[in-house]
């Protein structure tokens, strides 16, 4: 069996892992928070989109609503709750987001239940055939979107005042404050940006994987693996890492001995990354 079809099948989800990983890194760089609620925030947005489509509202409104809801939840947490933990260490701040994730899982469970739904876009029906595999336009869109968003964020960081402030915060929070960087404003902006990333990733995962709150919440783990590969700093390495994780999981499929356990690929890759890059990542954390 050839590996090429699996390479294609891994592209779509890999692109979403890339998108998610970059969303995590943007937030981490600006605020020092590793957002475990990223998947849950995206899942909430995707459920909202599904509900809108059930109510026969136009697709554009559903997509917009998903991104707005995700950005809003992220904004509220970033504005109201995250600052309460801003003086605590990285672990505490990360665990704080875990609380948000649990609350969101519960909210989705109460409103929509755990029965998996199907979120469909018209692009699911359109496809190119590559190596005998149908590559749907949704997957191609995911790839384009991942590239576009990384480019946009890179431009934002390097060319705008907000980007400069974010980079300053990433380097030295206290010094930035002395120099007049509006910390809360900048951090809130980062939360909104990560919320937008989460909304888009949630929509794509709801379509490509399945629309189920708990399941999508845990898909933050491959994204964290990608972010670790990028040492929580580099956007492009994170994006490439996310893509590689998606493809790795897919191309392990034809290897009979590993195939039943291939879902563990993101975790194994993250472990290896931590083992190899651990010391440098540690240094990055100490900076904060």
């Amino acid at each position, binding site marked *: 069996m050839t590996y090429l079809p*699996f390479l294609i*099948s891994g592209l779509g989800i890999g692109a979403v892992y890339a998108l998610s990983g970059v969303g995590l890194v943007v937030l981490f760089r600006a605020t020092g928070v590793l957002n475990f609620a990223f998947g849950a925030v995206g899942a909430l947005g995707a459920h909202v989109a599904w509900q809108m489509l059930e109510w026969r509202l136009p697709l554009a409104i559903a997509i917009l609503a998903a991104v707005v809801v995700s950005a809003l939840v992220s904004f509220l947490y970033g504005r109201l709750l995250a600052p309460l933990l801003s003086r605590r260490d990285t672990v505490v701040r990360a665990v704080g987001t875990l609380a948000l994730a649990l609350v969101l899982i519960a909210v989705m469970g109460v409103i929509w239940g755990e029965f998996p739904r*199907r979120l469909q876009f018209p692009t*699911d029906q359109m*496809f190119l055939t590559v190596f005998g595999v*149908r590559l749907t336009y949704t997957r191609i869109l995911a790839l384009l979107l991942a590239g576009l968003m990384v480019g946009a964020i890179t431009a934002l960081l390097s060319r705008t005042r907000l980007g400069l402030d974010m980079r300053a915060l990433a380097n030295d929070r206290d010094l930035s404050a002395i120099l007049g960087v509006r910390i809360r404003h900048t951090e809130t902006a980062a939360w909104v940006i990560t919320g937008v990333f989460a909304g888009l990733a949630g929509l794509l995962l709801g379509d490509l*994987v399945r629309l189920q709150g708990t399941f999508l919440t845990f898909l933050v783990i491959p994204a964290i693996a990608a972010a670790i590969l990028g040492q929580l700093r580099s956007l492009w390495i994170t994006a490439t890492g996310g893509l590689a994780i998606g493809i790795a999981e*897919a191309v392990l*499929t034809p290897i009979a001995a590993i195939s039943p356990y291939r*879902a563990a690929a993101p975790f194994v890759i993250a472990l290896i990354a931590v083992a190899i890059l651990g010391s440098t990542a540690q240094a990055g954390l100490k900076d904060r």
Partner: protein
Amino acid sequence: MRHYLSGLAAGLALFLISTCGANAAASCGTDGSEAATGEPIVIGAITGKTGPDDFSNSTKAAKAYFDCLNAKGGIHGRPVKYLIEDDQWNPETAAQLAAKLVNDEKAVLMVGNSSFVECGANADFYKKSGIVVVAGVGVPRECFFAENYAATNAGPRASMLGAMGYALDQLKAKSVVCIGPNIPNVGTWSCDGIALLAKEKGFVAETILMDPGTADSTSTILQAAASKPDVIILGLPKGVTIPLLTAAEEQGLNQTVKFLSAASAYDLSVPGTIGPGWDGNFYVNMEFNDLEATTPDNQNWLAVMNEYGQTSDPRDTFAQAGYLAARIAEKALMSLDPKDVTRESTSAAIRQVKGFTSDIFCAPWYFGDSQPRHNANSTTRMAVSEGGKWKVISDCAPSPDPELADIRAFEKSIGLAP
């Protein structure tokens, strides 16, 4: 006519998950006019409520039936005290709860158990304690290979092979790919059955075991499609089945390959969720009668749920299983002298159950006295997804699982099978 209308109303009520159409009166026990007030008969149950999935619909339905029974005279005036415990999908918890129910609460019988972990953890303990379990839904192999444990459902393997039998007889399948979860004694057990039957009947079978937690269903589907099978049989929870079907549709396989599933995908919401792309292309095995069947016992089940259950209790196959387990227990207990309801007398009465009929079952249910294992429900139906609903398309057919040879031989010996 009135009955037909009330049946229709109950079906609608089921669909809307409301009780508005419940006008058929529930019938339980002797249908006495007075509630039972005597000394309670303690019956236990272990279910996996909290954890990866909620299996407690079975015990909810059994509880509704016992509540109905108690309100209508109980077991010769003695009410049933039904104690339900949640094992949280943890074998250690399951073992502790079994000890609590059997040793501390002095339960005389276990009824309606539905747990993924309990059979493996407690089968030996039940045997040693001399208590019998009339379970609702059994899933892993251990539930069907224990001396004191008899489930009312068919189990994933018998159900999977029921679907395979249909694929062979009606769809004329010559090659098949079986996809199961990589969980020992579940996925391998079911797919091994297909492989065994393939050897016996001379068709081509391949097995794919997958991690139910994978996000990448497309690769699994590509792997299954690579050998160009006539049919693909799934033995997975519905939460994993739906993404696989979505991925298959994305690859256009719904047009070229027939998909079948064990009973785990038989849920009223599945055809609507997977959509019109699967009309006439996705078949599912049913361990019990159509959930909306207008037959008398199925209607009584719905009436019991409406009158004695919660509005929020799902009316699903697990609930059918729990209801049947409670009815079987009632039948056995009714045969006893009400002054002599002990664990010994109850176990003996359950062991004697044979020829228990209900239109929810395909064939009469029996315990199988002195048998080392039990799998009385091994005759199943098939339905196909059509227009957002399941359409029942086959009569009851025995599962062609070669491993059921001992069961079939026993059925012959007691005159149940031809």
